[in-house]
Structures are given as C-alpha cells and as structure tokens.
C-alpha cells in the first residue's frame, strides 16, 4: 500500500467527519432555540481533525515499520533459507524480489530472487490489509469519540484554533529540527575526524595535502593544516568579493533610493534581483571560461612569466558580482528606513543632497548596511560552485590574487568525491571543514540579525 493511498484515505475520512460534525451541529440548531457556541463549520473541523490527525500519525508510523514487518515475514519463509548469509548480494536479491512484487520491476536478474517474489507479494498484501483496517478502526474510534462530544454549547472553535496553532508549531519545528539534525551529524563526523587528527594540527597547520590512499589508521597530522583553506576562503569570499560588492552594492542602493526616477527604479531593482536568482553554476562558467582566461592574458601582458589559469581574482570578482544584490538590497532597505525627517533636517540646514547622503543617511543606515555585508560575506564564504569551477584545488598560502588558491568549500567537495573510503580521515576532514564553515556563517548571521534588530529599535 503506498502512503499516498493512505494519505488520501485519511483526507477522505476527515471529510466524512467534517460533514458529519457539521450536520450534527446543524441539527442542534434546528432542534432547539439554543445558540451554538461555535459555528457548525467549526464542529465539522473539530471532528475532521480528530479523525485526520491520528490517522496521519498512524500512516507515518506504519509506512516506517510496514516494510520491516514484510521483510521479517519473508525471511521466515523456507525460500529465504538458502539466501547468501549477508552483505551486499543478499540485500540486492531481497530488493529485487520486492521490486518485482510491487510491480516496480518487470523481471528478476538473480535466480534466487524468483522464489521470494511470491512471499513478498503475499506479505505486502497482508500488511496492506492490516494497515487499512487499523487506520479505519482508529478513524472510527476517534471520529465517534469527537462526534459524541459535540453539544450546542461545545466550544469547537477554541479547540480548532488550538489545533491549528499546534499544527503551525509542528511545521516550524521541522525546520529547526532539521538544522539540529544537520548540526548533530556534522558534529558527530567532526569528532571522529578529530579522534584521528589533532584539532591543533587542523586549525593551525599551514600545509594542506590529505592523501586519501594513505594508511587510515595512522594519518599524518601535518598534512591536514587548514590555514591555507581558511585564508583562501577569506581572501576570495571576504576580501576580493567584498571589494567588488560593497562599493557597487552601496552605490547602486544610494542611486536607487535617492536619485533614480520612479520609472527607472521599477526596472533596475528587479534586474538586480534577477542577478541574485542566476544559478551559481552559470556564474561558475562565466568565471572559469571568460574571466579567468582574461585575467591570465592581462597578467601575461603585464609581464608575468607563467600566470596560473585559475586565479583567486577571477573567482573573487565573479563572486563579488554575484553578491551585489545582497548588499544592495539590504542597504536599500536600511537607507529607505531612515526617517524622511532626518533627510529634511539635513537639507534644511543647507546641506546638499550628496552631503545629506554621505553625512546623515548612510551613517544612520550603517548598522543595516553592515548587517547586509555580513550576510553577504556568509553567503560568499559558503559559496561552492563558482570556486569549484574557477578556483583551484591546490592549497596555496599567498596574498597574490593572481595565483591559484583553494577554499574550504572546494576542499569539502574534493574530499567527499575523492577516492578515499568513507572512514578515512581525508574524507572525514570534509565534515570538520563543514563544521567550521557552519559555525562561522552561523556567527555572522547571528551578529547580523542582532545588529539589524538594534537598528530597527532605534527608529521605532
């Protein structure tokens, strides 16, 4: 039984409950002069929620455990006795048999699977029926319970409102729990990594060259110095990109809020926002195929002997362009949020428009602008596609923007897609890098949000 059908079943039963509850409420209204405490619709919703929520919970639990129950049943069959004891092959055979039984596959590849198809089919059929019956029983019991509670003076509305709130709460918890889950898995793998490589080597070492083929039991900590990666990340994402994005973003925000005539603004603002919507892989192409060769040619023309075709400058410049919209839209919002009285006050002192912008509006909007820049930095240092395509994988601790450099994100990709086994420290180092990145961006976002909040309060 696919969960979809059970889902539809739950909705259908809920609908029945809704109609029944509503009808009952109407009958109260007809049979007596009493005023209903809640509208009939709310009675309907009350019953519907009482039915749908338990059924949905059951469906969720059931679709998690039913396959396991089916498996137990099949393994208990005599046909399963001569399966390979364990491992990959056994799993493949079982999966194949199951796929044929559910109709997802046409025929079997492994002969052993053939005998198992029938037991699978039988078990699936049986547990489907069990599932439906239990769902129906739950629906009926919950429906009857709630239906019988309806009275003319029953406050169905309050209950429904409360459940709506609970549903919204659960929805918001999903995002939070996901974040926590991600963090937990990162922490777990990071701890494993630090069990093999010392955090000191990792955080302060200046040589990065993990060897995924080396002996995993005895890693060489000196090859795991992440400083060059941190430096590359900061140099590309927080320095070169910001040198591009801050002035351009700020100036375009000033132009748009202060000078642009309304019609131009309605064109330019969406155009800037489109820039934010361009897939980063497209920027990556642009950086790798257009900007990087151009910079290399420039370097050649300037007399450099053997310039790298992958430069930090190319990646940083393109990344800077990518985040212009983040800077400009935050700056735009915060400049626009400065009260008009401030501007008038300055103009009335005889300040010119540009003096007013420079000395009053921008300083007043500064917290918002700074917050925008921090969000942009956290975007930039977490950005992967552009640097994967345009920066290099060679760790290089240098301040020359024309040289190849690598970043944390590039190395995460390289380590995870490398040929090391999953529990090799080289692979696990990706998690430690991810963890550091996560903490840094989290801190940046946190500070930025605090700053923005203080800024808002100042003007309310």
């Amino acid at each position, binding site marked *: 039984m696919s969960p979809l059908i059970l889902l539809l079943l739950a909705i259908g039963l809920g609908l029945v409950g809704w109609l029944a509850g509503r009808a009952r409420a109407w009958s109260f209204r007809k049979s007596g002069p009493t005023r209903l405490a809640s509208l009939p619709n709310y009675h309907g919703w009350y019953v519907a929620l009482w039915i749908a929520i338990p059924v949905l919970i059951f469906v969720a639990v059931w679709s998690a455990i039913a396959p396991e129950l089916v498996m137990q049943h099949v393994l208990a069959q005599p046909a399963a006795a001569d399966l390979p004891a364990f491992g990959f092959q056994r799993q493949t055979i079982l999966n194949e048999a199951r796929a044929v039984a559910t109709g997802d596959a046409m025929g079997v590849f492994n002969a052993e699977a053939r005998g198992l198809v029938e037991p699978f089919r039988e078990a699936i059929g049986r547990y489907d029926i069990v599932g439906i019956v239990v769902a129906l029983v739950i629906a009926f019991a919950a429906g009857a319970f709630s239906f019988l509670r309806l009275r003319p003076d029953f406050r169905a509305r309050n209950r429904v409102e409360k459940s709506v709130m609970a549903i919204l709460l659960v929805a918001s918890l999903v995002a939070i729990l996901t974040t926590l889950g991600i963090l937990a898995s990162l922490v777990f793998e990071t701890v494993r990594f630090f069990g093999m490589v010392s955090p000191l080597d990792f955080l302060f070492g200046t040589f990065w060259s993990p060897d995924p083929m080396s002996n995993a039991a005895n890693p060489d900590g000196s090859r795991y110095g992440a400083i060059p990666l941190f430096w590359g990340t900061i140099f590309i994402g927080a320095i070169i990109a910001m040198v591009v994005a801050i002035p351009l973003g700020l100036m375009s925000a000033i132009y748009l809020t202060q000078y642009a005539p309304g019609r131009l603004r309605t064109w330019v603002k969406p155009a800037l926002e489109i820039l934010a919507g361009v897939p980063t892989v497209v920027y990556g192409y642009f950086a790798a195929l257009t900007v990087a060769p151009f910079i290399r040619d420039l370097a050649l023309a300037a007399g450099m002997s053997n310039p790298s075709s992958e430069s930090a400058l190319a990646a940083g410049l393109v990344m800077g362009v990518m985040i212009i919209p983040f800077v400009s839209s935050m700056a735009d919002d915060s400049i626009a949020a400065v009260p008009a009285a401030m501007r008038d006050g300055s103009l009335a002192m*005889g300040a010119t428009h540009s003096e007013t912008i420079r000395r009053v509006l921008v300083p*007043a909007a500064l917290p918002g602008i700074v917050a925008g820049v921090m969000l942009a930095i956290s975007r930039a240092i977490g950005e992967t596609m552009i640097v994967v395509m345009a920066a290099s994988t060679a760790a290089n601790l240098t301040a020359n923007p024309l040289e190849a450099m690598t970043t944390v994100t590039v190395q995460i990709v390289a380590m995870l897609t490398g040929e090391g086994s999953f529990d090799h420290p080289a692979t696990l180092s990706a998690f430690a890098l991810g963890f550091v990145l996560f903490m840094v961006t989290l801190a940046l976002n946190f500070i930025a949000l605090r700053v923005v909040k203080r800024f808002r309060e100042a003007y309310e």
Partner: protein
Amino acid sequence: MTVVHDNLEKTEAKMRAKDVSVYYGAKKAIDDVSIDIPTEYVTAFIGPSGCGKSTFLRTLNRMNDTIPSARVEGSIELDGDDIYSSGMDVVQLRARVGMVFQKPNPFPKSIYENIAYGPKIHGLAEGKDELDAVVERSLRRAGLWDEVKDRLQDSGTALSGGQQQRLCIARAIAVDPEVILMDEPCSALDPIATAKIEELIDELNGRYAIVIVTHSMQQAARVSQRTAFFHLGKMIEYGRTTDIFTTPLEQRTQDYITGRYG
C-alpha cells in the same frame, strides 16, 4: 482678499512674499498670499488643519523643492533678492533661513556633532577651538548648555523630546541664520518642555526673524507679535497678535479663534 490691519508700524521686511501660489500637481494649496516678515517680531501662522500653513512656511526656505509635485508661483524675497531666481543658491538660502520641524529630528550622531553639522558643511568654523565655541554658543542660546555640557558625546537621540527639540533649535542657530521657521515646534512636547521652548523663542526674538506655525491659540498669543490667519489656502487676515485675538475684522477669523470651527 487678505485683510491687513492698518495700525501696523512701518517695519523693514526681512522676507517679502508677493502673490505666492503653491500647487501640488494640479491642486492649489496656497492661493495668492502676500506677506512681509519683519525681523523685529515673531510672526505666527494660525489656521485650521490642511489650510496650507506648512506649505507656505516651506516655500520660505524652498523646502518644497524636495517634493517633486510642488510648484511655486509669485515671488519671495529675502533682503530684496528673489529666492526663486536662478541666481539664488539653495544651500546659501537654507543657511540663512533655518527650519525647525514639528517632530524633533536630531541626527543619530552625538550632541556635539548635531550642532557642528551645519558649521562644518558651510565652513563656518576653522579648527576645533572655533567649532567648540560655536557649539557652546549655540547650545547656550538654545538654553540647553547646562543640561548637556557634560555629555556632549552622547547621542542626540538619547535626549528627552523637549531637549531634542531645543537641540534642533540650537542646530539651526549654529549656522547663524537670519530667519528661523518653526512648524508646530511644540506639538510633540509636554507643557513644561513647551514653556521652555516658548521662553527660548522670546529670547531669540529680535536677533532673528522668527515665523512659527501653531495650532495653539494661547501659544500664538504668548510668543508672537504678528499673526496671520490662513483658511483654505488663503491668508484671510494679518495684523498685530493682540488685535487678531481681541478685535478680528473678519468673521472667519473670529469663528476660528473662538473655536467655532477648525
């Protein structure tokens, strides 16, 4: 047309508006107003809400330029020079004709920087000592010095509403204007802060030509010597404040000051 009382002393007009009309787009907000603003007196503009007091006040230092749809006809002179002529520098004009707004609007900078703002942009003070002196003098004139002299580096927005408004007046004074325009400067303040501002206006009277828009009849009576009554974009009556309040010549003025409408 405007009824002008004929018992007014002859005075030198600091500003002279002649046949001024103001439009917002196609809508006429000020209709053919002529008035002389003397240096010796405080002039009050009164009238029901929406009659155009603020609009007219803002034409006097061209703050209406910041509203794209606003258009001014007629002529306004400052010491005989037309302020709407192409030869007039708005920056200079606003340095000479300062403005205080309804809601205190100190810049989010320190108290010191708030006052120093104008002198800096107009290059009125050379060096730190001179600037310090300007700041102190302005704050003293605005009656705020004693309250803030120990906290000049605190933010101007951290002051109370009344202090903020006096800060704004001090800020306007700091560039040594010739005229100060005030648009309901006390409407956001409590009676005590209001009394302080009124006292301050009294002290500034004579040194600067002052124009004040107010909704409070008592305030107009207390601080001004000349009153102009506006109604529906027209200036209805102009005369000595005492005369306007005791023996108005126009029925509409009479109705307004006795609170029969508005």
